[in-house]
Every structure is written in C-alpha cells, then in structure tokens.
C-alpha cells in the first residue's frame, strides 16, 4: 500500500491551502448614532449609541463556492477513522455508524432545555432510557448524563466523593490515589477538586502493587482512581482485594471508563467493587471524536452515592418522565444538560447493538489487540492483553517511529506513554478492523522496525505536511492570522 495524502498547495508561496484571510478580507464599518468610518468597504447602521459599538469589523468575505472548496480541501488534508486505521491507544477510535448522525439531527431533538417538562417528554424519555442502559452496562445504581466529556465526568466523580465524605463528617480526607500509569486527566481532575494527588508506582507485573497500595492508603484517602483493564491492557486481577482495602480505610473506588471497551458483557465495574465511574461515550459507544470533541462523560454511582449526583436527573412520573434534584446534589457541572446530541448517538448505538452486539464488540476488540500484538516485531512486554497493548520501540525513538508510520498510510499509536514501557507504542486497534487491515498495520510497524534513525528522523514525507517544527511553534507563538502578519 502506498500513501499520498492530499496536499493542496500554492507553488508560488510556502503555504498549503491558503488561509481564508489570504484570500479575501472585507472591512465593514459599524455606525451607531453618528459616526462615519473612513476606510470601510461598506457601512451598516446599527441602532445603538456610538459609544456602545465598535468602529469596524474586518474578516474574510468569500462566496459559498469558494468556501465549499476551501473546507473540502482542508478535509482532504485530515486523517480520520473513515480514511484509515487509527490505533491510538486509550482513545478507542472505532467506526461511527452513520445512522446515528441522522438520529441526532432529527428536528424533534433540536429543542431548548428550558421548556416545561410536559412539553419535552420525548427528550426526557430518551435520557431516562440512556441512564438505564448505562447503569446496566456499568453495574451501577444511578447515572447522570450531564458531564460533557470524560474529564468532566472524572471531576464530577471527585465532587461526588467529596460530598459523600462531607456528609459523613469525613471532610478531612485530603488525598486521591492515582497509579503512575493513569490517564493524565485523573491527576488533573483530582487536583481540580482540591485534593493532594498520591502517585502509586506500578508493580513488576504492570498491575497495582498491593504493598504500595497498602502504604498509600490511610485515613486521608478520599478515593483511588483506577482504570481496568489498565493502560497496559492488563486486567487488575486483584480488583476485589483492592476494593476491600480502599473501603476498609473509608475511601471510595473510582473507575475511569476510558478502557470500558475491553469489558462489555464480560465484567462490570459495579460488580468489581467500584463506587463511581464515568463512561466515555465517544470511545465505548462510538460517537464520533470530531477532531477532539464533543464527547460526553456520564457518571454512574452505587446506591449510597445517588443522592449526590448533579441536578437534574430524570425519573418516571405520572406525566411520563420528570426532572428532579437529588437530595444532596453537588449541583451543576455543565450550564445545561451536557452534550445532548452526542448522548442521542450513544443511545442509538447501544440500542442497535444490544446485549450480543456489545459483548461481541469487546470480544473482537480484545481479539484484534492480541492478534496485532502477535504480528508485530517490536517487543511487547506483559500480556495477555485486553483492548490494547504497549509495545516498546527499543533503541528507536517512539515519536520518530510514529512519524515514519504515517508514511505507510496508517495513523500511529500513542507514543511515550505509559512510561513503564520504554519508548512506548500504545496500540488499540478496536473491534472494527478486519484481519487484512490488522496485517497491513503490522506491516507498517514491521517496515519501521529495522529502519535507520536518519530515515525515521526525516519522516514523514508522504503526508500533507512534512515533519513540523514543534519548537518554533512554541517559541515564536503565532496563534492567529493577525499574528502571522506582525
């Protein structure tokens, strides 16, 4: 397979597809009561006093055909799951079924949240059903759909834990324990909640070291945040003992749902002893990542914690469905009800797959990860794996390996993390890839494994842009086209 990504460029200037502002800009004068603008291309009278208005606005003014071409070209310079495999570890880049887009775009989905409950029964019913689906899938008692992203779900969970401890007169607890190999958001979310973050070193088998955990736990422990399988793709086999240890000191166990795609139908966080969890619907339930978002990060909790969830939640009532504020709610974590259209897509995906489809998705995801791990020539420590594995680039620089893989037409894995594996290549093919694609992915890895450092350092060359200078981007900050003109 060869790969040449579209690269629209001007031959007479050192740019690819020009910025809108390089094409055509127009200045519109804004005239309040009295003022005149000198150098405007046109002027609009706005019914406001002059001291409340700006003088002019300068922005690109292009025709619709020009814009259609601009954005179509830019899309062709963007790699996506629909253009090729995207085995980015921890990100679960799976195919996003197209029908979910149509379902979320239904006119009846497009309503304002401040409508009276009686007038939005359909929306409340879908929310209620999704709460219920997620509770079943996670083995949780109650779910809030409000957090707009996984990290927002973590922060919500931390606030819930805090509220629980306060309600128990236990507000002194000041520490949240996080394994060193955890997602960066875990540390940051705990810190945002005002907690001191205690980092737990990993054990030799890549799992939680129970002795280290014993040492870290104390009366100060508010919670332990874990993902299971962990970021090495390994199931924390001691999870029941871990749960007992955390609960014995009065702490709560938090489940980071980023890796839930490994377990659907096989195990549930609630059954493992977790008290709080978030779901990444843009990972596990196939809502598109959209270049970084929007996602959604619903939070599930066990029965004792339901009273602390954000407001409003949805329940059945005489009229059908109604919103209610949990008794000791932490309040709000989003201005309204979260990323509703994303939640509609997740609902549609779960309803389409059902029990068997969800279970099968995880089985295939795990099968694919283990198959690919077998097929690549890089060393893959630990194992057997669940949804992902972490290979080591050995003497090569993992970041350079990734750049070179781009030349072979595939998106590379997550690199240099978790640090427990040197020069890590964290790889998650997901369930969507067939054997041929996995083989071609393996060929991309294996083509790079023997290549010289000079070759890697010069990569990529078949992509829209060649290797991009990160240092100069940070040192000479230019964050807008205005800054480019300076």
């Amino acid at each position, binding site marked *: 397979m060869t790969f040449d990504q579209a690269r629209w460029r001007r031959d007479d200037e050192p740019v690819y597809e020009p*910025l809108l502002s390089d094409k055509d800009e*127009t200045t519109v004068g*804004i005239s309040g009561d009295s003022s005149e603008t000198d150098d405007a291309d046109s002027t*609009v009278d*706005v*019914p*406001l006093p002059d001291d409340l208005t*700006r003088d002019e606005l300068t922005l690109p003014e292009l025709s619709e055909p020009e*814009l259609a071409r601009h*954005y179509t070209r*830019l*899309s*062709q310079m963007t790699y*996506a*799951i*629909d253009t090729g495999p995207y085995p*980015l570890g921890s990100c679960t*880049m799976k195919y996003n*079924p197209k*029908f979910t887009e149509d*379902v979320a*775009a239904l006119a*009846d989905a*497009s309503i*304002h949240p401040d*409508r*009276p409950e009686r007038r939005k029964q359909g929306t409340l019913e879908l929310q209620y059903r999704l709460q219920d689906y997620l509770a*079943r899938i996670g083995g949780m008692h109650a779910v809030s759909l409000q957090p707009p*992203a996984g*990290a927002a779900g973590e922060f919500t969970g931390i606030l819930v834990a805090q509220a629980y401890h306060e309600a128990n007169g236990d507000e002194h607890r000041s520490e949240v324990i996080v394994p060193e190999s955890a997602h*960066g*958001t875990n540390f940051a*979310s705990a810190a945002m909640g*005002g907690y001191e973050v205690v980092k737990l070193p990993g054990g030799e088998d890549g799992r939680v070291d129970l002795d280290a955990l014993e040492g870290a736990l104390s009366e100060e422990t508010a919670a332990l945040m874990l993902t299971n399988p962990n970021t090495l793709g390994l*199931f924390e086999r001691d999870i*029941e003992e871990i749960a007992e240890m955390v609960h014995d000191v009065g702490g709560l166990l938090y489940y980071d749902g980023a890796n839930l795609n490994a377990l659907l139908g096989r*195990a549930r966080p609630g059954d493992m002893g977790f008290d709080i969890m978030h779901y990444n619907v843009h990972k596990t339930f196939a809502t*598109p*990542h*959209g*270049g*970084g978002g*929007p996602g959604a990060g619903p939070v599930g909790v066990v029965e004792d914690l339901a009273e602390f969830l954000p407001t409003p939640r949805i329940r059945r009532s005489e009229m059908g469905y109604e919103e209610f504020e949990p008794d000791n709610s932490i309040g709000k974590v989003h*201005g309204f009800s979260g990323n509703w259209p994303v939640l509609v897509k997740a609902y*549609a995906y779960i309803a389409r797959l059902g*029990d*068997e489809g969800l279970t099968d998705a995880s*089985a295939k995801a*795990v*099968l694919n990860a283990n198959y690919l791990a*077998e*097929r690549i020539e890089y060393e893959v420590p630990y194992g057997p794996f*669940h949804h992902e594995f972490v290979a080591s680039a050995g003497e090569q620089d993992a970041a350079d390996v990734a750049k070179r893989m781009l030349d072979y037409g595939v*998106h590379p894995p997550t690199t240099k993390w978790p640090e427990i594996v040197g020069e890590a290549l964290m790889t998650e093919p997901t369930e969507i890839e067939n054997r041929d694609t996995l083989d071609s992915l393996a060929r991309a890895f294996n083509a790079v494994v023997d290549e010289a450092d000079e070759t890697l350092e010069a990569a990529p060359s078949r992509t829209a*842009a*060649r290797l991009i*200078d990160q240092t100069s*981007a940070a040192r000479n900050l230019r964050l807008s086209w*205005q*800054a480019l003109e300076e």
Partner: protein
Amino acid sequence: MLAAIGVDEEADLFDIPEGIGFDGEFGIDARSEREVREDVETMLGRNDTMVELLGRGHYDGYIPSLVDHLSQRSEFLTSYTQYQPEVSQGFLQVLFEYQSIFAELTGLGIVNCSMYDAATALGETALLADRVRSTAGNRVLVPEHLRAEKRAVLANYVAGTDLSVETYGMDDGCVDIDALADRADDDAVLVYAETPTVRGVIEEGLPAIADIADEHGALFALGSDPIALSVLEEPETVGADVVIGDASVLGLPASYGMGLGMFATREEYVRQMPGRLVGASSDAADRRAYTLTLQTREQHIRQERATSNICSNQAWIALRAAIHAAWLGPSGLVEAAKDAISRADRLADAVDQLSGVDAPVHDRHHFREFVASTEQPADEIAAQLADLGYAVHALADHEIQLCVNDLGEDDLDGFVAALTEVVEG
C-alpha cells in the same frame, strides 16, 4: 486469528477472575438500524411542536446548509485530536482560523480551540484568576443577573480553591457601578460582567467596570457571544482581560443546551490558560504548517499541575462555528447583530401595546431578548401560551422573558396574537 494468538476461543482471551465475571445479559435487545431510527423518531415525536421564545444562554438559529454538509465530511467528523499534525493539517487550519476570527471579534490575541460551554468557561476563568493573582485575595465578583446554573457550575469549579464567589448589584439591568465599586477591594481577583446579560441587556458601563477591576489588580472577564461582539465595543478596547461565553450561536441550532465555550485572553496569560491552542510553524520543506502548541500546560503532560483537566473539548462545534462565521462574513455577522437588536425592539414594542404587559422592564438597549412585566402571574401566562404552542420563560411572579432567536415574522406575529389572547382574553 485465534490460532495465531494460540488460544482456542475468544473467551480465553479475557483474564477476568471468576467471581466478578458477567453473563452478558444487560437486557438490551438488538434492533435493526431502521428500527432504532423509528424508535428515536417516535420517542422524540413526543416532544411538543412549539415555537420557542427561549434564550437565557442557549439559542436557536438558522444554520446554513454549508455548515452541515461540510462539517459532516467524514474526515472532519471522525478524526481525533491532532496529535500527529502532519496528517491533520486541514482540521488544524480550521481551528487556527477559528482562533483568528475570535481574535478579531474580541480584540484579544489569544483564543483557545474551545471549552465545553459558557458556564465551564467561567469556572476556568476563576481558576485562571487564582493562578495569576498577585495578591492573597480570594474574592470573585459576579453580577446579580447571572443564570443560576452558570453560577452553580462556577461554585463547583472553585470548590477546590480558597476562592469565594460574591454577588454585586445591578441598576435597571446594567451593572450598578457604585455598588460594584463598594464591593471591590484589593482582595478581589476577578470581576465578571456580561454583555448582553442573561436578561438581554447590553451593558453600558464596561470601561468603568474595567477601571474598578484594574484599580484593585483583579482580572476583568467579560461574558458575551460572537454575534453580539460583531457590533459591540471591542472587549480589548474596554479593558477586558478574558472574554468567555457561548459561541454556539454560530454553528448550532438549539441542541438542548450543548454549547461551545469561547475563551480568549491577553498574551501575558497564555501560559496559564486552559485548553488547546493551535500555532503556526513550518514543516521540513519550509512550508507553513499548523500544530497544537504549548501542550506542556495540558493534563497529558503536566498531570496534576496542568492548567485544567480538559481533554475532549468542543472542537467539531468550533469547526462548525468557524464555517458559519465565514459563510456570514463580516457584513453577515453585523447584519445578524443588527437584526438581534431591532427585532427584539420590535417585539418589545408590540407586546408593550398590550394591556397588562410592560416591555421591556429595563429602560436599556437589548440584544435578542428582553424581560416583560405582567399583571397576571407569569406562570399562568407561560402555561397558557404553552397550550397555544409557544414557550417563554416565566422568571419571577410577574416577569416573563422573550427571545426572538431566528424566528420568522409569521411566528412572531402569531406569538403576539397568542399573548394578546392570553392577557386580554
């Protein structure tokens, strides 16, 4: 494939202790694509068909077809965060253009590629103020007219700090400058104000508010939206240090509250700000290229010392907003703002003619929405209007709030007729 791995069946791949295994019975029946579509259509069909005069931070607007068609291109929709910029130039350039358009609208040089919504952007602003404050002070001053849910989100964002959120008063819909001056002292680290306010009032005292913040060494954060900013005084000019708000008035129709958190600030705070940033650089062929930059502020590198925990953001909504803004162009943006002012004025004039209705309550300039006082209880009016197919906010005992959104003249005429029926019988 199983043979290649050396196991007999898929179940052998799972390394799950017996005691916690699950039998796979969620009780969710699989359905065909068509059945799911029909299920959701039927369910959402139970939402009443209504003309919504609802706003207060979330708005419905006409979205040009270009936005839907181009944003739905698979390459944009199904890509992820641009950690490999060499194959993500297209999306990065759109985000760079988004940052640039908002830099022009705010006058502030630095715009991130999105927060979740206006409320979380306000929370992040307080945390920014906490990081950059030069004093031991801990007071965050917010206006009396503030959406309660937004304030509730702010309260959660500052829960892990020593910041305390306090309210200052309003005077006929705008900031009561004297009241704010009395409240502010050297312990203030952030002064927040909005234009337009949650009640639709265009703030008239921005330079004075900025002076008060400046005098005490506090940050001045302004809440607004990109259509309003197309005609209102440039925030940079009036002294704002941070501009936040919901930018989904571009790019999104009413979406049950999904938003696009705008976040702009001055260059001096760039290393302390939350969220992703796209910068210009060059590639090995010396052509201009774009990349995520200053990632050392972010959680995946800085962990608990990151400026925020945000990872997934609203990038695709930012892309939609950028396309929408480009489609409107400067004249379209200014005309949209002009419309939001004049159409709100016309509706206020029309309902003010009715006996028992006084509109607008505040003798100020309005944008998109306004508050009307009513002789009859507001709840009753809202309920009767709902029976006639119109949704309005019932605020207090005798106050309703009306937002024109992008409603056509027929809908607005129909609403005035319905309100006439309700208040005049």
